[in-house]
């Protein structure tokens, strides 16, 4: 594990540019290259430009921030990794008060003038919203903070469908952003494939659409799914199948032999569908999934990422399978609420292995309080910062850069330890891996 951490930090610090196969180094044959903005190459020398520098990006992200956001990961393929690093390098933690005030203004209002005088209008379309879910609120703020680092962006317009179960609400939000004149749209499409028509409408109007958190507009291969990078700007997120296999590995090892339950988000959403397909396929023969998906295009254990529904789902599955020894889900805080089902059903929280994606502190601190040696949690990363990557990818696209349709964010599973609970966190529901500075989180959630 220590070796992995070291490798990841070195890779993050140096960037792909130091490896022999990176484009930035091997294209030295080019007679003239572009130096990073604000720098001037000495006369008579040939400069090798850092990747993306011609678009004003810097991939030398702070290794500590990379580690905070992702953990000890192995970098993904170069084109993706560069964009990830470029986005993290803009995640400044020491913001001045004026920037914080502007960020809060933009977060609280549907529309704000960034004050930069820029011509671009950033549209932010969330199927959830700041008032319904902390994770969504933090992701929104990270997108705003990222946008404020681009002087070209003069206006930020945000919409939230607040988990409305009618896909038309989110669709209308995106239509509004199109009519409002958004230059690009970043968001999370909770209804996935159902949003294909409106996303196509945006693209037809010349407005690139980028989703984050693996929010595919239909999982590739699904009937009617849009192709990221071709039909729409692109999607930022983990390799969902690899994530699902990692979840399965955690359960296979931790459970050994026994029953496990699987939860997901909005019915049919691409994120859940993507990892559930691969988790289901990768479970060992001794691990029995009590609620397998009905078919390859269906999600199971749908909770809409709403804590109450997660509790209902877990209560239901536990009723018929009290001997469940493992759970797999994206949403840590949802599982925190769902654990109430154990108390309701008088089942001890023992001999349980949990595989999760996000890392809200509520569950982790509850885990510490329980001090139960046979209850173990593994998690990947909250991924709030991926909205930043969506903004950076969109900005690259507007400048004509070649942006991959799938910007893969690497992941690694980590076991929860006492150090993962920070009792002094401004809000216990905020992910520990968020790159939103504490000064901003304090204003967002400090009351």
């Amino acid at each position: 594990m220590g070796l992995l951490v070291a490798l990841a930090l070195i890779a993050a610090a140096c960037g792909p540019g130091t490896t022999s196969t990176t484009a930035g180094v091997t294209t030295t044959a080019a007679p003239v290259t572009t130096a990073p903005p604000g720098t001037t190459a000495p006369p008579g020398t040939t400069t090798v430009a850092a990747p993306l520098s011609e678009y004003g990006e810097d991939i030398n992200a702070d290794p500590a921030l990379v580690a905070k956001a992702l953990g000890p990961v192995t970098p993904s393929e170069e084109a993706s990794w560069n964009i990830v690093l470029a986005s993290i390098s803009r995640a400044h933690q020491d913001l001045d008060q004026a920037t914080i005030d502007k960020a809060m203004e933009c977060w609280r209002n549907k529309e704000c003038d960034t004050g930069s005088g820029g011509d671009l209008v950033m549209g932010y379309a969330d199927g959830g919203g700041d008032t319904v879910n902390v994770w969504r609120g933090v992701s929104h703020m990270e997108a705003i903070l990222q946008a404020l680092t681009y002087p070209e962006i003069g206006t930020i317009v945000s919409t939230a469908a607040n988990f409305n179960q009618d896909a038309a609400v989110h669709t209308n939000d995106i239509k509004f952003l199109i009519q409002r004149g958004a230059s690009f749209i970043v968001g999370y499409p909770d209804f996935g494939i159902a949003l294909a028509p409106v996303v196509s409408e945006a693209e037809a109007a010349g407005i690139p659409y980028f989703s984050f958190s693996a929010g595919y507009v239909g999982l590739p291969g699904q009937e009617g799914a849009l192709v990221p990078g071709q039909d729409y700007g692109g999607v930022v997120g983990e390799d969902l199948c690899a994530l699902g296999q990692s979840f399965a590995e955690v359960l296979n090892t931790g459970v050994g032999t026994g029953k496990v339950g699987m939860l997901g988000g909005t019915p049919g959403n691409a994120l859940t569908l993507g990892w559930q397909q691969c988790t289901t396929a990768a479970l060992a023969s001794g691990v029995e999934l009590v609620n397998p998906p009905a078919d390859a295009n269906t999600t199971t254990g749908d909770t809409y990422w709403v804590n109450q529904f997660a509790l209902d789902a877990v209560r239901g599955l536990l009723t018929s399978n009290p001997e469940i020894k493992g759970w797999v889900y994206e949403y840590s805080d949802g599982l925190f609420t769902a654990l109430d089902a154990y108390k309701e059903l008088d089942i001890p929280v023992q001999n349980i292995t949990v595989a999760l994606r996000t890392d809200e502190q509520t569950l982790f601190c509850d885990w510490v309080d329980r001090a139960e040696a046979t209850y173990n949690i593994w998690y990947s990363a909250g991924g709030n910062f991926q909205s930043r990557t969506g903004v950076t990818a969109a900005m690259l696209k507007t400048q004509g850069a070649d942006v991959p349709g799938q910007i893969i964010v690497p992941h690694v599973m980590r076991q929860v330890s006492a150090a993962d609970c920070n009792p002094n966190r401004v809000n216990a529901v905020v992910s520990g891996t968020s790159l939103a500075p504490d000064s901003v989180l304090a204003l967002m959630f400090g009351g």
Partner: protein
Amino acid sequence: MTTLRTPSKAVTSFVVASRYMPVFLAIGLLVIVSSIWVPAAIGPVSLSAIAPAGALLAITALGQMLVVMTGGIDLSTPGTLTLAALIMVGVSDQLDDRIGLAMVTAIGVGALIGLVNGVLIGGLKLNPLIVTLAVGQVIAGAVSRYVRSFPVQSAVPTTLSDWADTRYLGVNPVFWIGLAVTVVLILALRYTSVGRRFQVVGANPVSSNVVGIRVTFNQILVYVVAAVLYAVAGVALAALRGNPAVSAGVPYLLGPIAAVVIGGASLAGGLASPLSTLVAAFFLTGLNQMMLALGLPTALQFVVFGLVIIGGMLVSGDRIIKGVERVLRERRGPRGPKAESDIAIESG
């Protein structure tokens, strides 16, 4: 002169009671099906676990039942419930000594919402469906603004959530609240003049007006009482969940209406039974629990839930009454003018 026959008291009681029978048959069927497919779902621990959820649905359904008894319908239930739950978070500010203030505020705001509904519907004679839908939207806007005044997913005071964790006679206190509300309504509707007026106004507002019953006042009052019940459910929900979300009220739009329908109430107004509404709420909660226990896909859960509501409509109280009437009429043979017995049956 025509000799009018009066049906026996037993026949009348049977006819009146028959409209509420389907829900008891349904819950019996659910128990049988559960015992075959998911035996654990009808065990004491499992039933205890769903008791608070059933009670919450029952409290809101009882409010909706009162409205339906006046021939109306209330679609502002989710908004009122959500606002009350969030007031418990916002006003209490996680301080134990503010719990009382928060409760009074939540229930007071609920009553105010009911008053607005009542004045618009009872006083101005506007369509209840449209009015309550519109008021629900206004509340949704207010909720959206209000939740920005405190951190999202904030918790209620620990004393309140600890209370919701306790057990009385082995069951969650919210269940006992639901049961108490049911008993109070049964007694009020049967033994108080206010309760009887509710039924009379709903069954025949024109005649009620003629005999001097203040129809408008009763219609306003019923929306106020209903909204207070929604607010009580919101307070209980906040206590149960600890940190209620903006979407907390979503399941309470169709659920209470379904419970009222399956409970045998007449959608045209008039008769309804708090007991059968309570049973219907627990039937729906139990059905939901069974489907979750079976791990059914969400799509199938929606289908089953929808089919059950349609089934409830098909064997609704009004249809049962007509069916029983028809059978009795056929047994009595053809007669001339409308007999007193028919009138007695209809006014049930």
